[in-house]
């Protein structure tokens, strides 16, 4: 019987659902409240909950700092990359309409990719800040 048994069992039960809800909010930003920022924070909160209830070392093994920094960079690059891709396809910067045959489709695709980029960056940055603070103890 370890200490904090109740907390550990509950965290093990709840963390998958928190991650699932985070992905749900990310993907349903088009049809309801949600989007990249909220989803990033919720996913980061799941990892932070794990790091608080169990130990920080195991959480860092699950999400190493190099991977987190890479994900943050890839998120911003994805967003700006969509803008540059619009330039390549002949439109203006961040004018998503040229990504598909009709403007509405292109806009929808552009918004989806951009929100994924935002979600990735926000989640990675929240986790980077948490692990930077938690490391100094």
């Amino acid at each position, binding site marked *: 019987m370890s200490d904090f048994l109740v907390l550990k069992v509950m965290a093990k039960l709840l963390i998958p659902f928190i991650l699932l809800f985070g992905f749900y909010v990310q993907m349903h930003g088009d049809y309801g409240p949600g989007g990249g920022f909220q989803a990033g924070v919720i996913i980061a909160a799941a990892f932070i909950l794990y790091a608080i209830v169990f130990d920080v070392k195991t959480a860092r093994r699950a999400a190493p700092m190099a991977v987190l920094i890479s994900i943050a960079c890839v998120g911003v690059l994805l967003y700006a990359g969509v803008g540059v891709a619009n330039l390549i396809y002949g439109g203006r910067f961040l004018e998503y309409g040229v990504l598909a045959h009709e403007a509405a489709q292109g806009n929808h695709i552009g*918004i989806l990719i951009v929100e994924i980029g935002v979600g990735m960056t926000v989640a990675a940055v929240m986790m980077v*800040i948490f692990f930077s603070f938690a490391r100094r103890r």
Partner: protein
Amino acid sequence: MGTVARQGARQGRRAIDLTLNIILLIFVTATGIAAVWLRNLLASTMVLGIYSLLMAALWVVLDAVDVAFTEAAVGAGVTTVLMLLAIALTGHKEKRSRTKPWLPLAVSFATAGLLIYATLGMPAFGIADAPAQLHVAPYYLERGQTETGVPNVVTAVLASYRGFDTLGEVTVIFTAGMGVLVLLGGATRRQRRVPAPAEEDSA
């Protein structure tokens, strides 16, 4: 019969709206003052969490559900944890300042007075023919779904019509993360030795 009942319902709804707004604003002001007044930083952090929750409720009453979602997730969730971590690294109590801040207080009150006086010249909150409601807002509401294919107007405005601003926001968040890394030195894999007790500052 129908119009009288409908008007009665509208009066009732407005009265409940007004009561909710007044109660929430009183509590928001009280928690704001309490967060500044308390000297114990842990209690201050908890009060700021309550403040974020009340602000999220205010946003819901104003029908801004996306903003309420973000405020609840960020303010009452992650920010409280990060502030607790920062307090664990530094100290629990706020230091007493030597001088009384009378001049900054006077400047704050003067600025607040000027701002309140300036809002008297703006159109009333939420009336239908304010310039803010006539120019771009009807355009976004009418053409948002057909032009972007996304039913949620907030996401359409955020990611498509104002996509450049959101790119700036994401860059700011990224820069904040990198700034924390540079300041706290978490990027390298170098294992720091546990600091000697003489080196640890007072908790």
